[in-house]
């Protein structure tokens, strides 16, 4: 018999009465029965799921049967591992991460000497290669990012409100002078943009009727609020949430996101919360046809602050 034909094997065998090989369960027979029953319950529940699925049962029935089935199976398998398998404790040695001194020196030599030496010998070439890599990165990254979106330019400072723009509600209906009762509120958009992304996200304006006489919210805004109407940008100056809550008795506009509060009759000055600026006011007039229109755009950018925000325009 030669060694090529047979490699002798030496098994390390733990004796049957070795405490390391013993199950944890005090009564393995009982544990075995219980685990078997739990797993059978799991299978039963899974069959229940198949039936429930076939009957297109309600979601909670399908979730309940599937979840319970999987959970029971999991309990069974885990308990089998925990109580009926050899418990150990077993040990293994760690291998140190660190190589031997010899290995480390040879590795470093390869990197620093062989690699660095080649670079060092041709400094100019190395520099040109480095410049090439950098150029590649720049040339690659800039156009990729640039393609992701347009430059902001002046977009953030503009809305679609212009002189004479008709105010319409979300269904596109224009607002007649007597349409809204005192205390009434409606969200308005520039005519034609009521169902568009920019109309809803940028131009949204909240129109409030606070009385019947002209409303002057601040000096210099004498003509902005005809017939008791005031209109403010609905974009919160904090983070751009719609300032959707109107507290009629206190005449406050409240942002539901972070509870900034703006006084309606005082130029939407923020009196509470994190909003730093008043809501921009939209100057209104009543056209000869009795419909509400904008005198012009907002006198500043709407919504939250950003670097090149303009305050007049």
């Amino acid at each position, binding site marked *: 018999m030669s060694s090529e034909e047979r490699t002798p094997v030496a098994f390390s065998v733990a004796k049957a009465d070795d405490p390391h090989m013993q199950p944890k369960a005090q009564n393995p027979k009982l544990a075995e029965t219980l685990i078997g029953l739990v797993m059978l319950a799991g299978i039963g529940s899974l069959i229940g799921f198949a039936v429930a699925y076939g009957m297109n049962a309600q979601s909670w029935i399908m979730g309940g049967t599937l979840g319970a089935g999987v*959970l029971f199976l999991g309990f069974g398998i885990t308990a089998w591992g925990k109580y009926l398998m050899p418990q150990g404790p077993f040990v293994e040695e760690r291998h140190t991460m660190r190589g031997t001194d010899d290995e480390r020196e040879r590795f470093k030599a390869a990197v620093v000497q062989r690699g660095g030496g080649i670079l060092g010998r041709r400094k100019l070439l190395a520099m040109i290669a480095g410049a090439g890599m950098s150029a590649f990165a720049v040339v690659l990254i800039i156009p990729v990012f640039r393609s992701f*979106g347009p430059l902001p330019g002046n977009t953030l400072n503009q809305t679609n409100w212009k002189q004479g723009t008709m105010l319409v509600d979300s269904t596109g209906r224009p607002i007649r002078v007597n349409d809204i009762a005192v205390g009434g509120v409606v969200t308005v958009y520039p005519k034609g943009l009521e169902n568009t992304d920019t109309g809803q996200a940028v131009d949204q304006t909240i129109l409030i009727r606070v009385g019947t006489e002209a409303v002057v919210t601040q000096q210099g805004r004498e003509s902005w609020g005809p017939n008791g109407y005031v209109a403010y940008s609905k974009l919160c100056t904090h983070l751009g*949430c719609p300032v959707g809550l109107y507290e009629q008795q206190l005449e406050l506009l409240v942002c539901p996101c*972070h509870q900034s509060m703006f006084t309606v009759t005082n130029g939407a000055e923020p009196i509470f919360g994190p909003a730093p600026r008043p809501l921009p006011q939209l100057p209104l007039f009543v056209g000869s046809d009795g419909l509400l229109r904008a005198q012009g755009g907002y006198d500043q950018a709407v919504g939250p602050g950003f670097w090149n925000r303009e305050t007049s325009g």
Partner: protein
Amino acid sequence: MAEKTKQQAKSSFGPVGKALDELDDRLGIAKGGRSLLDKIFPDHWSFMLGEVALYSFLILLGTGIFLTLFYVPSSTVVVYHGSYLPLVGQKVSQAYATSIDLTFSVRCGLLMRQMHHWACDIFLAAMVVHMARVFFTGAFRKPRELNYVLGSTLLILGIVEGFLGYSLPDDLVSGTGIRIAFSIIESIPVIGSYIAFFVFGGNYPGPQIIPRFFIIHVLLIPLIMLGMVTAHLFLLVHQKHTQFPGKGRTETNVVGTAMFPVFAAKATGFLFMVGGVITLLAGFAQINPIWQFGPYDASKISYAVQPDWYMGWLDGALRIWPAWEWTGFGYTWPLEIFIPGVVVPGLIFAVVQGWPVLERRYTKDNEIHNLLDLPRNRPKRTAAGAAVFALVTMMFIASSTDVIANYFHITLEAVLWSMRILVVVVPIITYFLTHKICQELQASQGAGKRKRANVVTRTPDGEYLSAPAEPRPGDEHVDLEPEPVPDFLEDPVVVRERKELLSPVSFTGVRNVVR
């Protein structure tokens, strides 16, 4: 005779053995495979937290693939004609319409969607708790700093991934979240509006958001996370587990149960258990009912809706930060957004991720550590970690100022100012309190161990006698001395058969060399 023995040896251990032989001939799996099967997993309940995260990640991948088969990532406006009657005839985005339809028209769709959402919440929670375990026990110390950074980066990616997924149904609540995210990016000085326009493909909202977020959510980030999870696990296996100090446990060994079969069985069972719990939650506990929120319209908003829990702390910071917008040098500095929205989370993550370096610089400890600390034995680290948790918790509570004010009938202003004070004070108190508790625990004998009760009896004469009670089950438990993993041939019948088959072979552990 020789030939016969060879044949028998070749086909030893039956057909499975033969298959393994064939595999080893080609792939050389025997050596590495055996040491993998013998891999030791130290036992402690807290070591399963990472497993919860891993398994819920797997469930996220599975349920996520199911959802992508029905969801259409498009903000094109369509008229809804599906099975959810209240919505029929309304103009909604295709993303919202298909989200509703996969919920109500696809069998098991609602269950899958809720499983995906619950698994996400559990995934992130498990990562946080797992990371806390690693932090408080000092498992991040040399040589495992890299794995700690990998893991904490996974947490950040998980938060971003969760936010993106939350946005995809295009419902009213998620849309508001995206609007806030746009505003936060916009607030970065100088380049904010550029980044915002590049990320969103133009001004908010634009038609790009849904398809773009979709591909980032289902491909880009999951791919990165999958790679990082793999690297995390590879490093875990390569560097081996840490373990708590105990009998026979040293810096140079690992003591516990073996990979095969005990850990394999427990882990498989535990995967099923995590899946079962998530499925039960998805079946019985409603989460993110997008059909109730309605489709997104940038000019509409709902009241008292909170983001998913892992975003709450950021929302809280934005809520309580004072309105500090500053205009200077001809430009607007939206510090009331930039500081709580970018700087504060950036600093928290920087401290958390940089902790191994910070601690090493402070303690000048450059040793290899494989044995874990008890948190009480590192009072400063434990106190610092507790303080960060207190800070984030207070920020989280601050995200529901309006709910608190409503519930307790106090003014919003009182709640706001309380939170502004508490968010500073509570972490400081927590630090000193935790530090003190750690010191007390160190000083007291047998803290954390079960104490033997004293039984006091009264004799007929009125005399009181005190004696220690009977030991409770487990009190007398003594750990065995750990031993190397054997080949598990403990069954005497099997042993006898193998003896005949493989003769001459020694079963005493001494190698017989045949010449």
